[in-house]
């Protein structure tokens, strides 16, 4: 652990209200059943009697289209939270313990444990930061509503009621999921929205307390093997690593903690697992672990900043740092750059006209990315324009494909959600299906575009047209390289997955050569197919392989969820693929069918 303030583990945890937690959980379950949802009044009363300052927040949200997997469209809910005010502190800093109120028997024990911990924490005198105990409804939607209201921002269209009780800047948050009276192990989820990760120290903290209390802990549902230096252990680590890459690349928060990260609040989700193992742990042990973590977080003098924010985890106790994985990615991007350099030199060499003019005009698309007339240097604009005139038609030929590809991207981004009502009127499908099917239809239709675009201006066969694909490819390669580099800084896993699939295909694409084979490679490299393959790989890795039909269903579900995630929480995966990667891929597709 890098953080000094969380260093030594000298204190003895005293939490012993395991039975109380279970009793509270049963109470909660009964009241939840009676209320047919969140038992707001009961929660408020209980929290108040525990000595907390209780607040509630009502929110409502209308989804852009019905969410079929969770069966919701117009969402109304209430978040209830209690604030434990730290003595002799001015409410400048806070910690959050949150748990969701899920329908059915799910997550009752988590609420029970949360209340028991609140009751125990209230009696302690050592708190220096306020602690917020939050029970939120409608999982991520409730969390989003609460976080937005707490920070008084409005990113999404959530409407929520009135002003809230606040407790200063939140330093760290732990989200708890627990559905059984005893647990065999704890799974920790780190990936947040857009693949953001919490500081590694928070994870180390959890790991340290699991070790201390003898609790089994897993990541991605995989237990670390004790014989870490053997081949099966390496295979296990690889599996875990790949699962993390896939989860991070999806940009989907893997727990309710995922939304905290946007506000620079370090957060993880802890998920109690009850499997068929022999040895079970009771609530007191779980409570002690959480107590220890909160005491350590309470000791923090500064925000967690000492350790890594960018890492990949092959197991809970080992990590791959950014310094190790970034060079590998750099080499991948180097392929694109070298290929682009090669094209540029070829263009320079085979130019029939004056080489000086050509280098000027070739330089244009590479720097301005749109491939229009290159910007003339100041001084002699008119003279330069005259000399460039012979080149202009060749560059003009690039404008339609670029524009059309981006128009296709725009259509892909806007049409599915805007056109859902039209689609449901004309076809016998539900709104959610309509959105997903429109998405696929536009995606596939985009592939038919190259046949009609570049022929509009300058027929094929001329010398300029033959060289046109080179310029277009040069442009596409540099565009792709820039996108992937930027992406790898934001969400490494996504950037890496796209790079691994797209870079070879992009480098190989040319209208000459075995066109069918190249077309196949390029189709395999398209983001949609990558997503489909990623779903199959993920099922394979969690040892529940999916049949093709099931995989397809999951693929459709993932498309819908991806769109929802963008519209509800502002995930950038959907606009990025629709407005950036897909047009770029279409440019390459254009190159392939240039003649």
């Amino acid at each position: 652990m890098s953080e000094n303030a969380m260093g030594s583990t000298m204190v003895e945890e005293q939490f012993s209200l395991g039975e109380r937690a279970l009793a509270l959980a049963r109470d909660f379950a009964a009241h939840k059943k009676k209320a047919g949802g969140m038992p707001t009044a009961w929660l408020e009363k209980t929290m108040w009697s525990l000595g907390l300052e209780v607040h509630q927040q009502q929110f409502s949200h209308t989804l852009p289209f019905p969410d079929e997997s969770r069966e919701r469209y117009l969402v109304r809910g209430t978040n209830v939270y209690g604030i434990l005010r730290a003595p002799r502190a001015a409410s400048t800093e806070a910690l959050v313990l949150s748990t969701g109120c899920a329908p059915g028997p799910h997550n009752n024990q988590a609420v029970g444990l949360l209340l028991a911990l609140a009751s125990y924490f209230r009696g302690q005198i050592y708190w220096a930061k306020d602690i917020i105990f939050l029970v939120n409804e409608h999982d991520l939607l409730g969390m989003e509503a609460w976080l937005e209201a707490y920070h008084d921002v409005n990113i999404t269209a959530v409407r929520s009621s009135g002003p809230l009780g606040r407790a200063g800047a939140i330093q760290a948050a732990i989200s708890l999921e627990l559905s059984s009276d005893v647990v065999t192990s704890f799974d920790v989820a780190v990936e947040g929205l857009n693949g953001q990760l919490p500081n590694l120290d928070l994870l180390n903290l959890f790991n340290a307390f699991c070790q201390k209390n003898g609790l089994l802990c897993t990541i991605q549902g995989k237990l670390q093997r004790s014989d870490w230096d053997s081949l099966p252990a390496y295979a296990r680590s690889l599996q875990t690593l790949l699962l993390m890459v896939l989860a991070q690349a999806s940009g989907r928060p893997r727990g309710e903690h995922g939304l905290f990260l946007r506000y620079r609040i370090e957060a993880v989700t802890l998920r109690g697992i009850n499997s068929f193992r022999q040895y079970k742990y009771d609530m007191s042990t779980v409570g002690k672990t959480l107590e220890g973590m909160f005491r350590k977080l309470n000791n923090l003098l500064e925000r967690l900043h000492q350790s890594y924010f960018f890492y990949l985890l092959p197991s809970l106790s080992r990590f791959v740092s950014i310094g190790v994985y970034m060079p590998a990615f750099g080499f991948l991007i180097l392929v694109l750059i070298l290929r682009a350099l090669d094209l540029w030199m070829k263009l320079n060499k085979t130019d029939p006209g004056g080489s000086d003019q050509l280098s000027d005009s070739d330089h244009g698309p590479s720097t301005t990315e749109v491939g229009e007339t290159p910007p003339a240097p100041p001084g002699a604009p008119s003279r330069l324009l005259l000399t460039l005139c012979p080149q202009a038609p060749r560059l003009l030929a690039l404008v339609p494909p670029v524009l059309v590809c981006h128009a296709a991207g725009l259509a892909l981004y806007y049409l599915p959600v805007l056109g859902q009502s039209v689609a449901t009127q004309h076809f016998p499908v539900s709104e959610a299906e309509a959105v997903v099917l429109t998405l696929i239809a536009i995606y596939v239709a985009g592939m038919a575009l190259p046949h009609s675009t570049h022929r509009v201006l300058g027929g094929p066969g001329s010398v300029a047209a033959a060289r046109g694909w080179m310029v277009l490819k040069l442009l596409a390669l540099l565009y792709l390289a820039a996108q992937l580099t930027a992406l790898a800084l934001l969400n490494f896993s996504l950037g890496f997955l796209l790079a691994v699939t797209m870079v070879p295909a992009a480098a190989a694409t040319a209208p000459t050569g075995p066109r069918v084979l190249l077309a196949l490679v390029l189709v395999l490299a398209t983001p949609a197919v990558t997503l489909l393959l990623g779903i199959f790989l993920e099922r394979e890795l969690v040892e529940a392989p999916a049949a093709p039909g099931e995989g397809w269903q999951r693929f459709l579900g993932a498309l819908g969820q991806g769109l929802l995630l963008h519209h509800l929480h502002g995930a950038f995966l959907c606009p990025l693929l629709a407005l950036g990667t897909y047009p770029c891929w279409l440019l390459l597709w254009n190159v392939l069918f240039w003649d």
Partner: protein
Amino acid sequence: MLALAVPLLLLAAAGRGRAAAAGPGRDALREELLLSPLPAGDVAATFQFRTRWDADLPRGAVSHYRLFPKALGRLVAALGVRELHLALTQGFWRTQAWGQPPLQAPAGAELWVWFQPSVTDVDKAWKELSNILSGIFCASLNFIDATNTVTPTASFKPLGLANGTDHHLLRYAVLPREVVCTENLTPWKKLLPCGSKAGLAVLLKAERLFHSSYHSQAVHIRPICRDASCLAVSWELRQTLTVVFDTFSSGQGKKDWSLFKMFSRTLTDACPLASQSKVYVDISPKNKEKELLEVTPLPTSVYEAIVQGDKRSYAVYDLLSPSLFNTSRSLNVQFKWKRPEDSSEMPIPVLHAQRYVSGYGLQTGEISTLIYNTHPYRAFPVILLETVPWYLRLYVHTLTIITKGKENKPSYIHYQPAQDRRQPHLLEMLIQLPANSVTKISIQFERALLKWTEYPPDPNHGFYVGSSVLSALVPSIIAMKDMDVEESPLFTSLFPSSDGSSYFVRLYTEPLLVNLPTPDFSMPYNVICLTCTVVAVCYGSFYNLLTRTFHVEEPSRGGLAKWLANIIRKFRGVPPL
């Protein structure tokens, strides 16, 4: 001097019981403890020690100090202080749960001082004063400098006698980061005439006082009228200390309390130097119900008054009355709830406020203040004072004040923009609060990049923005009577009430913790910086040396003379020099 005076007085006290009868040029001490159960179930204990001295301090004629502490007296005389208010606070008074405070102070250290009109260089005197106080109270008041000092124009008026209110003589500063602990309490206790040896001060045991939810100690010095005719000036020193005990966590959910439970001491006698020594217990019934509480032992008397717009009754224990210690040797006030409180309904104070930073990211943000007026039918104005450090660059054009969905135009605005590293932002506004309303005041800011040496050792902790101050005359529901200041208990008499229909309230909001963009101060960063610097310097100079060509420059001598000589030579037909 004090050492001589004390035995004498002790003799007198033994003889008469009341030692310090007020005579001309004499000083008198009154001590008082107010215990009030708070709506949320906690207990607030407010100690007040008032030393009144019928002498004119700043004239410099005084050299003999009796009860008035010499350190403060000489300070007042030497630096031309007219009024001094210093508060050191740990924690935050939660107005919403605890009700209107008798005397609130912002978290950290607060100092505001009015200087005499005779002081020429106020800034110098202020600097000197804060440094001396820093020594006296063992607090980091020496960190008060131009970057956190402001001169409010409307929020802080003199509390004592004052001829003019030229606000240039006022200085105000808050140090929100200041941590208050026993080292600040000890010098504060030493200023008391009886120390912590006798009287109410016996209860001031550090280990209990800091086992509380809120701790605030203050010193107020001000000139007051000597008598009703107000022809002469007396000086008053008030030492107040407020603690809030959390009865919930200490009593395992039961809210009963006693002096012994809270302070682990009981009272045995009054301070022999005090002319008055009383304990007040607030026994006014809440929720208009029958009395639910029981106080033992039986109080000496019951005092009824209208405090902060509310009719209250207090059980009074006069430590100087001989009947009190007849039955038992010590006084341990006990307080029992007759039946457990079960409602979560709490009376909401008429005026309360909340402040927070909104937004996310490290570039911009917004400071929002919510002010609540819960009075059912009366609107009243409130003065808001915001002091924001310079490294949050306020955008004044984004200042919005919204009440009930409509814009609320302040009737008075005083804004003094910040200067980097010189002075903070000062924003003062007079806002009318309509009845039963919430007013939201928000202003956006940009976070500045500091120079790398300006970051504190813990830059990732964040930077504090001091509490903003709300001053208001809150309309009272019940008409108040004018009281004689000398006769009424101390806790009602610090703030002057203008008339019977309203009472003065000063509230402080939460301090804020704002993160600024912080460079990576970790080792790799430093190594990279250092290496780059070394490489740049070495490479630069080497490159310079290697690529430079050296020429021997012809020395040019005598500009004008040479020119003249050349002209002459030209005429002569000789080649020029």
